């Protein structure tokens, strides 16, 4: 990221806006902030930010409505900030096109890592041939996976699963999304397949005894391939 990225914050709490501005500016973002959903939407259209931080509890338009309207015309990465911490709330937002979800209160380091991750998508869509996260390496052209430089054999399904997670590295991918991508649209409710293959995949790619796991479970929501904080 050579240029200074622009983050657009939509949150009705004044305090939260000003503190987020401080944290984000400290991390070299240009920050725009708005307290209403309508205003935020029109500013996204004119200012073209690199990433949007959206609070769900807005006074004028519900955050989910803002998200839905935004997704009608924009692919800008959206990170949801909310005090609602139920899995249902998160899945709803993710299904509506949010890139990730973070519950308030959150730690700044976590927020910044998620922000970097949601912007990564733009990079990974340019048909990257190689993917590297910690000890894991994926060669998308040769369909090979290495752990600490050693090649591991994955079945076609395991590879497909890992590929989807790597393409969304750092972001949570919902069960539904994974099932649809790997098994097709008719498998969206067959979550047991996913559990089995994730277990197999973990056994093959997680470094034994490692404290930090690469594949993180988001209970009731989905999975996340974690990017190490400092690459």
């Amino acid at each position, binding site marked *: 990221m050579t240029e200074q990225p622009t983050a657009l914050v939509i949150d009705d709490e004044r305090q939260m806006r000003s503190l987020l501005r401080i944290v984000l500016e400290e991390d070299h973002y240009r920050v725009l902030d708005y307290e209403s959903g309508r205003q935020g939407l029109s500013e996204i259209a004119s200012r073209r930010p690199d990433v949007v931080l959206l609070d769900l509890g807005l006074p004028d338009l519900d955050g989910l409505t803002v998200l839905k309207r935004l997704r009608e015309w924009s692919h800008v990465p959206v990170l949801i900030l909310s005090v609602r911490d139920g899995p249902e709330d998160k899945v709803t937002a993710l299904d509506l096109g949010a890139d990730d979800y973070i519950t308030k209160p959150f730690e700044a380091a976590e927020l910044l890592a998620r922000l970097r991750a949601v912007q990564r998508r733009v990079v990974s869509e340019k048909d990257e041939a190689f993917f590297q996260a910690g000890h894991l390496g994926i060669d998308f052209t040769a369909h090979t996976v290495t752990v600490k430089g050693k090649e591991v054999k994955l079945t076609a399904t395991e590879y497909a699963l890992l590929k989807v997670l790597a393409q969304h590295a750092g972001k949570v991918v919902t069960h539904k999304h994974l099932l649809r991508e790997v098994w097709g649209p008719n498998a969206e409710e067959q979550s047991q397949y996913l559990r*089995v293959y994730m277990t197999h995949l973990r056994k093959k790619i997680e470094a034994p005894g490692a404290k930090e796991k690469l594949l993180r479970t988001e209970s009731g929501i989905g999975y996340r391939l974690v990017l190490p904080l400092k690459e």
Partner: protein
Amino acid sequence: MTPKAALLTVAAPEVYYGDDRTADRDRTGASRYELLRHGRISPLAGMSEYALAAVFTALVTAISVALEPFTGYESIALLYLLLVVALGLRMRRGVVLTVAAASALLWNFVFIPPRLTFYIAKVEDGMMFAMFFIVAVAMGHLTTRLRRSELAERRRERRTAALYELAHQAAFASDLDTGLRAAVSLVESIFATPVALHLRGQDHALSPAPHAASTLALSAAELDDAARVFAGASASENVRRGEAQILHVPLQGRAAGMGVLSIRTERPLDASEKELLEAFAVLIGLTLEKDHVMEAFKRAEILEASARLSRTLLESVSHELKTPLAALQTGVDALAQQTANDERAAATIREMQWALRRQHRVINNLLDMNRLESGVVHPKLDWCDMGELAESAVELAGDALAGHSIAVEVGTDMPMVKADPSLLERCLSNLLLNAAANSPPGSTITVRARMDDGALRLSVLDSGPGISPEDLPRIFEPFYRGAKSRPGGTGLGLSIVDGFVRAHGGGVAARNRAEGGAEFVMRIPVEILQPQVLERLG
């Protein structure tokens, strides 16, 4: 009172339904109902119809004797015929036919010459006597039949009216008790007997306490009979207990028995009375059931409204508590960014961050406790892999486990189970936090998952000092904190585990292990999916 008036009172009581029956049987029953109905006895009420008929016949004979010199003996036959018709409209068939035969003989004996003999001299007199005999008997027969069908008609009418009245009272009573009181007093007045009403209780068994409208108290033995009829809930039953004969009629709703109506009878009821009583019982049963359904409906509505209110309230409380916390957290983190090079400031900020995390946990626990108490926690079942669940629970517990090593024991044959992954994850993570707080740093905490007789058995074992005996029975109580527990806890973590596990229909227990340390076991009945089944899938 003239004999005539007495006869009418006896033969056509206005309310008593079995009046045709009293006309067909002996009068003692009728007189009893008369007594109950009017509180007095008419002078002739006890006299049998035969005696009355004899009195009337004698009267007509006396009048005829007086009239005969002016009218001739032939016209007297018409007077007797009139008597037969008149009695036929009021009295039973046997009496009327007897009177018809007697008047024929009397006419012959007293009036047809030669008088005061049964001998008939003239052929035309003989023919007249024979024809009179036939006509009188036929008239008696026809008039009694007419009366009988009229009575049946009236009975049907009254029965319909009574049922209508009951239905009306049941449907339009301002509340159930008023309706039942009206029904009981109706049954009481119709059958002239005290009534006991026992309804179905909360436990779906017959309540031993009579409904307030009851006018009859059942003995313990009679109550047992009523309970048996209720349990059978099909036929009514007549039971003799000492002096009293009690008839128990089940109050049958469409789906379930709603109670038993019992009346005291000194003689068995006849078919039509029983039929009427049973029709009443059906009506009362349906009314009770309707009321019951309405009550359940109202309760469900209230429950739903209160659940909705709790959810809204919880959401806004959660918002109000967490928003300033989020601002504090972000602010402190911003300070940390700005003072990265100042060791003293960094140390201060670390303490603040630690306090904030703790505050966050406390708020989450309080909110969860509140959710559990308002009954808005409903597990959302999905397939869970126990290895995965244990990993994410460890993740959730976070830094607090840093000083311990965690061993996860999940057998390779462990099937997938259907449970709410986020609730179970919270339970497991709370148990891990509890174990970490109560066992020495560096020791091992074990998470063990296995199937036990169709239930998931998920346990957390530590190698700490164990749980003191006085704490053991109270350890899952909200806000309970053991005498030797460390400062900093809220005493909510374990009760939340208890609540979430209960929400799954399971239970959690704590015990001290023989080899030292405490063990917490969650046992949850679950649907399972054998791993082999899935191995075969694509």
